[in-house]
């Protein structure tokens, strides 16, 4: 939802430009002089522009944010915490930015003021990403379900709107009401800022962020656990709705394994998007994140999770683990390639690995060289079309499960090659078995 509030910043930037132009209309084409004989005075025009800004900011902000939140609900299993105050904050930010646009227009005649202020808003948001003094705080996602003080914060933004609105009107004279309004607004802003910063929720948030720097932090708090079919699934308390989704991907894989393997499987435990990853945490857990595909994307999510469990069962490196260096290892020619792909096939149709070309900077001399990274559903594990073709043939064979379970120990041994596995699996040799091109997986 922090992302959604950030959308408010983009909408607000557009509105700020418009509001600034509307305010500066007086200075273009001698419009100020033209308006002189009109009974409505210049301060009334400023107030009218401000009110128009509040209305436009609210309507556009609500429309865009509602559309965004609405679109996220299509074909998804919503989890997390729905916080209306936090969304209101997004709308308030758009209003604040338009108000600042009006104030800037009244106090500085230049057209450049609005673009500069917009850049300052974005700069501050990226530079002080976790400060509650910002009108919008983008990095609340460091810790899942961390307590946040959005209500105080929303009031703080409201006070800022008051300050800038009053400042715009203050340009036309220092009446007691106007000075009073600025004073009250400033006092309110200081008070609400202090409340935001010192509230118990803010302290908890800070503690949570400090904790996010420890090696086990990515799974800290993911302790809502459910055991099903011999596998433990742990999610953040606000993500319990996704455990059945994970189970759909993992249970068929586990059911296809020999019973002695089922007792040694890792826990499926949710992780946050950012943070340090401890190798031990990686070894003990399969780590689905805080995203899950929808509108077709769930196929890839399910396939990935199934692959992780299949890799864990057969001793392959998983996402984040490396055998054979960062470039990954090659499973071509090994019998277990067919087994893991067949295991994925219990859930979704397995696919060939993807590849990405990256440039890496060498330590020391800083020279750069190109490297091709493999990204399969297992992680940095490569395999070829031949293994995939065998697995697909195996998926159409009725007794494949029994054969695999019976010959399990031999099949998952890294030393067993495809040709040796074919009689065990009851397959005839098809296309030529591929040879390992990179470092073979161990």
């Amino acid at each position: 939802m922090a992302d959604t509030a950030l959308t408010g910043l983009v909408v607000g930037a557009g509105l700020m430009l418009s509001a600034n132009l509307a305010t500066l209309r007086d200075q273009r084409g001698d419009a100020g002089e033209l308006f002189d004989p009109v009974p409505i005075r210049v301060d009334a025009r400023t107030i009218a522009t401000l009110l128009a800004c509040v209305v436009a900011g609210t309507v556009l902000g609500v429309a865009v944010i509602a559309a965004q939140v609405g679109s996220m609900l299509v074909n998804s299993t919503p989890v997390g915490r729905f916080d209306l105050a936090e969304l209101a904050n997004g709308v308030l930010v758009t209003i604040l930015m338009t108000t600042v646009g009006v104030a800037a227009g009244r106090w500085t005649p230049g057209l450049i003021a609005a673009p500069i202020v917009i850049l300052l808003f974005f700069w501050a948001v990226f530079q002080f990403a976790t400060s509650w003094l910002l009108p919008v705080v983008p990095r609340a996602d460091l810790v899942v379900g961390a307590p946040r003080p959005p209500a105080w914060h929303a009031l703080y933004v409201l006070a800022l709107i008051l300050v800038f609105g009053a400042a715009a009107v203050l340009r036309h004279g220092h009446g007691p009401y106007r000075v009073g309004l600025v004073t009250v607004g400033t006092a309110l802003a200081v008070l609400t800022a202090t409340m935001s910063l010192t509230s118990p929720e803010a302290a908890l948030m800070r503690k949570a962020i400090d904790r996010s720097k420890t090696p086990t932090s990515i799974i800290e708090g993911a302790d809502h656990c459910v055991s099903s079919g011999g596998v433990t699934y742990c999610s953040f308390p606000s993500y319990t709705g996704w455990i059945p989704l994970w189970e759909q991907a993992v249970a068929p894989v586990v059911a296809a394994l020999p019973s002695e393997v089922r007792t040694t499987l890792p826990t499926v435990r949710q992780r946050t998007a950012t943070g340090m990853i401890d190798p031990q945490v990686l070894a003990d857990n399969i780590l689905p994140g805080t995203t899950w595909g929808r509108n077709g994307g769930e196929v890839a999510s399910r396939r990935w999770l199934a692959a992780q469990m299949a890799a864990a069962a057969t001793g392959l490196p998983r996402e984040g683990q490396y055998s054979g260096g960062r470039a990954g290892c090659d499973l071509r020619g090994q019998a277990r390639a067919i087994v893991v792909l067949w295991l994925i096939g219990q859930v979704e149709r397995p696919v060939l690995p993807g590849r990405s070309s990256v440039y890496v900077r060498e330590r020391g001399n800083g020279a750069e060289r190109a490297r091709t990274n493999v990204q399969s559903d297992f992680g940095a594990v490569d395999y070829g079309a031949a293994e995939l073709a065998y697995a697909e043939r195996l998926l159409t064979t009725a007794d494949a499960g029994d054969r695999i379970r019976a010959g399990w120990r031999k099949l998952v041994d890294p030393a067993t090659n495809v040709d040796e596995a074919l009689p065990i699996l009851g397959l005839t040799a098809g296309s030529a078995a591929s040879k390992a091109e990179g470092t073979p997986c161990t």
Partner: protein
Amino acid sequence: MRLGRLSVAAVPPVIRAVDWTPLAAASVTTIALALLTTPGQPIQVQNLTVTARMCGVLLGVAAGFAVVDTADEISAVTPAPRWLRQSIRALGAFAVAAAVWAVAVSVMVARAVTDVDLGIGGLIVEAAFWIITGLSCAACAVRFQPVRMAAVAGAAVTLGLAVSTVFDRERFWPLPQDDQWQAAHVIWGVGLVVVTTVLLLTNREVRR
């Protein structure tokens, strides 16, 4: 030869005719941002890149104001053709913006952490792209109407472009340590060629 003399002669009056206020305001802001980046402690790579990138976009937006020639429509009879006058404006604004950006980044580099690569080469390509994008967008807009408002339209498009790339941060705005750094700067380099071509094309004579 005649063109050479004409160009030299046209520089002083054209440069004097440029409204330098927006670029001056943006320059002050840029230097201030460089000084305000994590004050009192060594600047980390991510903070330096954020400020350097934002300053590039800001200076591009401000430079756009320099290509607005409100007298464009009545200058058609001057001996210097439009492309020459506009190119002098663009070149002058680019030089100032680039110099200010270089000063701001130098200020930050002096305070930056020393043990990691700051990726200055890549940042220079990005800054050049955004300054010329700001110039090109405004230069397109002034072809329709040579008024100062055109620069704001250009600014809106430039800012819109910048915001639209933020959503794919890994592809467009990686950190120097990221794998995508080189690939991203191939994109920025190609973009630089494109926006420079656009700028050159938009400086042509306007048919009225």
